[in-house]
């Protein structure tokens, strides 16, 4: 033992000196006692012996307190834990048995509930199928989905009905919620259902509120979209989309879905990409209806819809005419010169009125004219404010003129009011 101190005399002395110095330093250093981590008791102790603002607590004291309080706390909690554990054991001696019983109960109830819900859902589905069949007066075959094609790119399902049940290719497939797709290939007892989100699918649709006609297409990513419409502020997200009946596959007026998003399509200018959220969840199909024949008479709602669509179709057909109305025509001249025409004439004149505003004469303003021949009279000229080069007597004798020389305003008539053809005058 002695040898130890002798042997390590120098280092021990050094350590002792360093320790002493640290303690001495710690006694001198004072830190504000604002440490929230310190236990409440410690903080109270500090306050008692320190100035009210807690500035004069020495570091050594802090260290002591910090070292002792955890031990105190540990002793305290272990006592209370032992006491608590004893109490628990006494109170819950039978809980394990009860728990087991209750869990059994819950499992049984869940099972029951699920089967009831399934029954109810099936009941509702079947009821709606039935109601749907009655509402649309369509001849159709109910079929079960029995499998998928499995490929990521093609969205084809297999149905348990086939040609023996009257199914043929191109027959539309629906659920009460809306359009699902159409029959592609038919086998005796099964058939292929091509979903509307398959890249090779398509359907003619109408946007239900704006009555705009469009074409629905599937995509390789399994989305349903409209990509043949140009940007139109009338089209809003959430607008329902229904079938137009023009494609000779889907009957008119079946719900397809709602508009989910509208975004410009940079690859396909100037068209927009409109994504449709299908009304039917195409990933969870169970029973579907295959429409094998449509009745000749439409239900009242569909008939109403048909009439509305017909009217819009007429409007669409006249898109070319609308452009034509902006171009000059004889009627527009007559309408423009006859002043404010009524109704359609006025509208027709709207396009071309500006372009012909400078034509001053209307038929009534003509003088004379041959009997029975329109526009065969003389115009009533509007007088000039001051004589110009067109006024009688304005032309100098030939000796004072250069043959073919342009008149003063010759260049005027070209340059100042000449407009860039790229930006025609807006009428």
């Amino acid at each position, binding site marked *: 033992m002695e040898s130890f101190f002798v042997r390590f005399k120098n280092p021990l002395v050094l350590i002792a000196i360093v320790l002493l110095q640290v303690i001495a330093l710690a006694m001198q250093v004072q830190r504000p006692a604002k440490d929230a981590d310190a236990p409440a008791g410690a903080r109270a102790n500090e306050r008692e012996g320190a100035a009210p603002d807690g500035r004069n607590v020495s570091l050594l004291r802090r260290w002591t307190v910090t070292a002792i309080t955890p031990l105190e706390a540990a002793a305290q909690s272990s006592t209370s834990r032992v006491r608590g554990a004893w109490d628990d054991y006494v109170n819950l001696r039978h809980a394990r048995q009860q728990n087991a019983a209750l869990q059994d109960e819950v499992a049984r109830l869940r099972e029951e509930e699920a089967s009831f819900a399934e029954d109810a859902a099936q009941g509702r589905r079947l009821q709606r199928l039935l109601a749907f069949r009655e509402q649309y007066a369509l001849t159709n075959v109910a079929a079960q989905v029995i499998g998928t094609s499995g490929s990521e790119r093609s969205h084809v399902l297999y149905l348990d009905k086939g040609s023996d049940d009257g199914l043929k*290719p191109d027959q539309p497939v629906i659920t009460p919620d809306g359009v699902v797709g159409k029959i592609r290939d038919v086998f005796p007892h099964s058939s292929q259902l*091509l979903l509307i989100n*398959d890249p090779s699918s*398509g359907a*003619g649709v109408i946007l239900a509120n704006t009555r705009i006609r*469009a074409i*629905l297409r599937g995509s*390789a990513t399994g989305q349903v979209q409209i990509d043949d419409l140009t940007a139109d502020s009338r089209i809003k997200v959430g607008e329902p989309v229904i079938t137009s009946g*023009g*494609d*000779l596959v*889907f009957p008119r007026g079946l719900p397809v879905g709602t508009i989910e998003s509208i975004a410009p399509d940079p*690859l396909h200018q100037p068209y927009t990409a409109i994504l449709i959220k299908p009304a039917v969840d195409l990933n969870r199909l169970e029973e579907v209806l295959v429409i094998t024949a449509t009745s000749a008479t439409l239900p009242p709602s569909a008939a109403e819809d048909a009439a509305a669509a017909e009217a819009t*179709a007429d409007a669409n*057909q006249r898109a070319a005419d609308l*452009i*034509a109305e902006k171009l*000059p*025509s*004889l*009627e527009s*001249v*007559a309408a423009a010169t006859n002043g404010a025409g009524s109704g359609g004439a006025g509208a027709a004149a709207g396009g071309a009125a500006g372009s012909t505003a*400078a*034509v001053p*004469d209307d038929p009534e303003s003509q003088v004379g*004219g041959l009997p029975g*021949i*329109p*526009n*065969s*009279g*003389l*115009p009533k*000229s*509007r007088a*000039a*404010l*001051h004589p*110009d080069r*067109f*006024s*009688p007597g304005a*032309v100098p*004798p*030939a000796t004072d*003129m*250069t*043959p*073919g*020389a*342009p008149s003063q*305003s*010759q260049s005027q008539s070209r340059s100042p*009011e*000449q*407009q860039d*053809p790229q930006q*025609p*005058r807006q009428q």
Partner: protein
Amino acid sequence: MDLESIDRKEKLSAAKLHLSQYVVAAVLVVLGCWLWRLQILDANNYRVLAEQNRIRRVPVLAPRGRIFDRYGRLLVDNYPSVTCFLVRDQVKDMDADLPLIASGLHLPLDQIQTTLRHYRYTPKYEPIPLKQDITPDEQAFIAAHRDDLPELETLDEQRRVYPRDGVLAHVLGYVGEVSEADLNDERYAAYEPGDVVGKSGIEESYDEWLRGTDGSRDIVVNSHGKEVGQMGEELAKPGHDLRLTIDLDVQMAAERAMEGKTGAVVAMDPHNGDILAMVSRSAFDPNQFSVRLSPAYWRSLMDDPNHPMMNKAIQAQLAPGSTFKIIMSLAGLQENVAQPMKVMCNGGGVFYGQFHACDKHHGLVDIEHAIPWSCDTFFYTLAEKLGIDTIARYAQSVGIGQKTGIDLPEEATGLMPTVLWKEKVMHQPWYPGEVISVGIGQGAVEVTPLQLARALGGIASGGVLVRPHLVFPSELSPEELEEIQTEFPGSGDKTVPISPQNWELITDGMAQTTVPGEFDTAGPEHLEGIDFAGKTGTAQVMSHEALDRTNHGHNTEPNAWFVGMAPRRNPDIVVVVLWEHGVWGEHAARLAAQVIDAYVTEQRERAKNLQMQVAVPEVKQSTVGVGGAAPAE
């Protein structure tokens, strides 16, 4: 035993081994060669073949340029339209699909079969246009049958919209699919079957300018020909827009003036040849040509005796009647023959043993009176003195019997008879008596309205004749301008010497025509406040004898001509009106007056030099009075 057999086998193997080695080596060499050929020599070829199988090129059609008038007012626009094509290399048995296609596209089955037959020699990969301008329903049909009718393709394109009622129809022309005959023509070397080209008018003469460059889209297809993606897109370059010299205000005045009549109106700026208006009636509807033309409409156009497809402004070749007397005056005055002439007009005169009538007894007539009076007797005498070849020389110097060189296709030449012409073409000798009717613009003389506008506008401009045009030469590059001028040759820009005295005499004479008084032939056609000069013409459709023989079924009323201009010398506008069977020249003068008035009013309006309408203040006062009284009630 075993050893023996092994030995024997080894012996046999050894014998065959060499052979089989060579065989194997030879097979390997052959295979290697094949591999080399497939993978290296022909690699490109096979790659292209494979790509072609996988990638299909779909054209993206470029929209044609729009057309505007000189002030930028829209004349021709486009609208989006969808065409359905048949792609034949996708399907083995197309005939089975035809009934379904026919019902979906609302086409008769036999029409599709005819189309297929028509294109049977074109390569399979080339799409056949099946139906143009399909309806949204038909588009939906194609979309809904993409899986079972992959042969149907749609193509978005821009279709032409022209003004209605045949306004500007002949000037603008129309477009159509390039015909097989055209494709063999050198001019159409860059075109492919199914391309849309200008078929007449500006659409034809400026086709290269208006048509854009088609782009293309490379789509990736699977083994069923189904589109599964897109590789790349080459954007279509739209055609250039075109600004015409047409002034829509003047054009519409001319269109209205010709409404319900047949004939033509040309308005031109004689300073530079800008065509301000050009009307030909009866007209056709170019919009009918934008989509497939209905056979019934085509038949109705062909059967119309008024030839609606003909641009009468540049294609009607008719006797100019008395308007020719201006050219006669030019010849007579420049030859110093007309100045001393004093002709006694007693309602006609006897020349070469035959009586030629004048419509009035003008008494003693000199050249100054002869022009406004349009005295036939004077010009019979003048023609007799000048002789046909002198008349022809002057007439040809102002462009009669030659194309003007306007930038429109199929301009007619007209005809100025000469002795040589009669001998060479008609194989008959020239009878001196024939010159008499030439003197009043009858006989064999034939002009187009445009020729007359250029000639008389040039004379009124002191002999400066211009090449008429519908597109500003300044807006074309020198090469394009040269190309256009080579393509449409004509007498072009030219100056004919006219002495100032003769220039003044002729133009003052024409100004007298519309001044009511002693000398007028179109006195009622006076325009207050406008220096409106001109010359009437009443041209008989047939000779009197022919008239007597055959007037059944045909309209034999004379054609009415008027060449008007304002102001009288160096005019800013010259207007030629041809009113077929309009009976009298002064009837045509009224139509010309409408056009001149529209032009002058427009010019004055642009210069803010127009008085307010007189009736306006009175009306205002009365409405104010009513308005003031109303609240009191």
